[in-house]
């Protein structure tokens, strides 16, 4: 597998995809699926299935619009924006249905028909890992409270293990800015963790 987030390699893949080569687009999906999923995972309220759905929709939208993509821009930035908008749309839709999130799944309440259960398969949580699950949810909420600019950098730096210069290329920002945003993100998260009692 090629190096992830290789800006120059992306150009070739994107050009091939724009010329109708499906395999090229599949390679792009394989490259970026985790990064996009991570983004959706923290944007949406910690539900894996929603994040998968959002990621899936992101790539389908990207495929349909690939010919409109301008090669001089960073592909990941473009893909990231599609994911951002997709997540926002999903949140809007869910708000309309007044979805209440519970540990065992989601119950969708329709005002006209009364309570209605929709099953989303959640990851099974053993009782002895309940504390870990609570911590994870708290951290996810703190991540969700970060601004999109800070969150995108911390996701790429900490979860995708990208160096600052690669983050800068992919997000189309100076390297110094990428560094500053990463530091600011961690500082904000620390504040949030202290408030929630996760840090002594």
């Amino acid at each position, binding site marked *: 597998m090629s190096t992830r987030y290789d800006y120059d390699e992306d150009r070739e893949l994107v050009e091939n995809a724009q010329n109708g080569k499906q395999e090229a687009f599949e390679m792009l999906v394989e490259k970026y699926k*985790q990064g996009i999923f991570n983004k959706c995972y923290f944007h949406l309220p910690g539900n894996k299935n929603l994040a998968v759905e959002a990621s899936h929709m992101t790539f389908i939208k990207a495929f349909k619009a690939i010919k409109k993509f301008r090669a001089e821009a960073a592909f990941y930035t473009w893909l990231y924006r599609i994911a951002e908008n997709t997540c926002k749309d999903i949140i809007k839709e869910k708000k309309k249905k007044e979805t209440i999130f519970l540990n065992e799944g989601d119950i969708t309440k329709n005002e006209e028909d009364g309570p209605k259960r929709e099953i989303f398969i959640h990851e099974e949580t053993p009782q002895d890992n309940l504390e870990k699950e609570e911590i994870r949810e708290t951290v996810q909420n703190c991540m969700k409270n970060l601004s999109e600019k800070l969150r995108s950098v911390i996701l790429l730096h900490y979860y995708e293990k990208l160096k600052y210069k690669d983050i800068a290329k992919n997000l189309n920002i100076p390297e110094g800015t990428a560094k500053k945003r990463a530091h600011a993100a961690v500082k904000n998260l620390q504040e949030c963790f202290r408030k929630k009692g996760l840090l002594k």
Partner: protein
Amino acid sequence: MTKRMKCEKTKDLLVDYLTQDLDPGEYQRVESHLKTCKTCRNALEEMKETLHLLDLAQPPLLGPEFTKQVTTDIEEIEKEPIPTPKQSLWKKWSNLLPSYRLKPVPVFASIIIVCIGVFIYFTYFLPETGIIPKKIEVTFFRPLTLKTGDLTSALSAARAAVHLCKGEIAAEETRASGVRLTVKMPVEKEADFLETLKDLGTLSIEGHYKNKEGQIVILFINTL
């Protein structure tokens, strides 16, 4: 650099120190400072805990089935027929004349120029003889005037003459200028009727004395 500034600088670099994003020189400086500063060592422990919490929240990994699902859906999309784009009205018109490459702007400009030319020609250059106006006939209508010193008798005699000539009185109006009598008279009796009027006073015939309906109009004027 003061100790405080060193601490501030070190704390800023702790994340990169732990994620190994510092160049060797910076790494050494942070290491040296940490050996001598308990505050910064405590800050380092807190940063380790912070990053550990981020590790706990690591999103799950997507398996290969994700890419397969996306690929399947893309193949379905590829199979869908491409919808025919709606043609604009202009394009439809252009297609009716395939031998011409019509471009909207020059064509509209040409139409406008032609319209202006036609307007200028008809306004300023069309010769006057080009169109012969229809002849208009103007008829000046003036009622007969009968000046009399005895208006009542003259009117009475005129009414009697109308009946004698087998005519009829269409209207009789009293005006400031006099009494206006409108009479419907058979054509063959007109001359006799006029002769009778001449006997009643001074009769003036100054123009066409019949109205649009062909009725004789007489204005009786009291001279007293």
